[in-house]
């Protein structure tokens, strides 16, 4: 006979989280579902975790160009070719974000939406004319998304980069005229 799944003590859905609370020296433990509104009110934020850090990675992945495995990359913290960046993209972004190697903490939305720029510096064909305008547009889109998701830290950073880029474009136009 199939066992009945453990239910959330708050709303009777399938439990996936063990929530422990210490009150007057006593530990109270309850099993709750990840979208339980009672749990949300207890911890003061949505608990259906969208943060990047909780994501799991495909540990069987292997780079087709250099043969590097997930285990190697995770152990050494270094890659062996350009394709490694594509193969282990999510893991590398997670590592960089977690190790404070980027000015902002990434969430899974930024990682999944590959159109949101993470690299803000120069590119090989260093941003001239149309490219500069395209980059400006994508930065502005990213700013709107950051504001709507209330990621103000990232929004501030993007606003500065937009200012820098506009200054560059405006400066160039002035020189040209």
């Amino acid at each position: 006979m199939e066992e009945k799944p453990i239910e959330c003590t708050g709303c009777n859905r399938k439990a996936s989280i063990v929530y422990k609370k210490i009150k007057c020296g006593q530990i109270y433990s309850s099993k709750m579902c990840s979208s339980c509104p009672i749990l949300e009110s207890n911890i003061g934020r949505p608990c259906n975790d969208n943060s990047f850090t909780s994501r799991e990675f495909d540990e069987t992945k292997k780079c087709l160009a250099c043969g590097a495995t997930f285990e190697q990359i995770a152990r050494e913290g270094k890659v062996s070719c350009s394709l490694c960046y594509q193969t282990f993209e999510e893991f590398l972004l997670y590592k960089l974000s977690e190790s404070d190697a980027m000015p902002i903490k990434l969430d899974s939305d930024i990682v999944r939406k590959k159109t949101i720029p993470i690299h803000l510096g120069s590119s090989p064909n260093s941003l001239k004319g149309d490219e500069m305008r395209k980059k400006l547009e994508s930065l502005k889109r990213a700013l709107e998304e950051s504001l709507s998701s209330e990621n103000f830290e990232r929004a501030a950073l993007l606003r500065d980069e937009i200012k820098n880029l506009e200054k560059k474009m405006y400066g160039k136009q002035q020189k040209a005229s």
Partner: protein
Amino acid sequence: MANSKKLPNSFTSKMPWSDAKHPIWPATLFQLRRNLENRLFPEKLSLTDATAVLEEIKNLFSNYLTIPLDSLTPDEKELFFERFLLTEQFEKLEEARAFIVSEASNFLGIINLEDHLHLHLTSFENEFQTPFNMLQTIEKTVAKHLRFSYSSRFGYLTKDPFFCGTGFVVQAILHLPTLLHLEKFSQIIETLPRDITLKGLSADETYLADFVIVQNKYTLGVTEESILDSVYNTALILSEKELETRNNLKKEDIAYFKNKIARGYGLLKQSYAIETSEALNQLSMLHLGISLGLLESEKPFNYFDLFFSSARAHLKKCSKNKKDLKDNLCKKRAEFLRNQISSLDISLKNLYN
């Protein structure tokens, strides 16, 4: 195969930082990391492919001196480390790896070490735009002929993901003895911007010789301009704070430094044998003593010349009898410093007043 080796004349004619003018902020190092497109990174390259990369890059630097790594002795390699304050890990494999160096030795390119190409530029001006433009010009010259490994998300791709994005690191090197010794530093660190990291010259992260390296913490998610601005502004603030502290030393602080300077002078003038770290730390005190006017030298005192000359490879290079040096480096260093300090005719009159 090793080519015939020739070090730049500047390696023998002058010491690395003899052009440094500012006593507190003597130099800034600019570094750029790049890899070529569609190639494995150096560690995984076959010898044939690594040689091909070396040849392709080397040919673009015809005005510079190319020095294959396998043509250098360990002492000569160390000389490069000391001169350019390199932090790269040198693998055992040295074939198909090379240094490219300018005659004035303010520019160094490293081929096939951690990445296909590292560009290093040393500047002695407290102005960032000119050296940055120079570095960009060199990079663009290479980019005209060779495509760099790049992705729109990660920017320029490097072996160590911590340097991807711009691949650009700026290190302002500051001499901050009063801030460090008066323990004001921990308070100052708390006020620094988040995108800045501080480190020392030695591998154990201590501030050897009271030097503090102000470096950008991020290479991804920031622009080159913001890196330059942030390092420049922080270095400027710290050097101004050091100057302000020196100008406003309290009576008890002056007594503390007088003691330190007098001891440093005594050690350098009288030591029989001295380790590098001790020598550099005492030289720092001597430099401070001269800056504060507590010591007066008859002849020009070039702190940075003495600083580099006391380092192992430079000391070995300057020594005539190489065999004698093997077990007696500390004795040789002490002897060198005794002679140098004596020849300066330093007056301690102000120190004891």
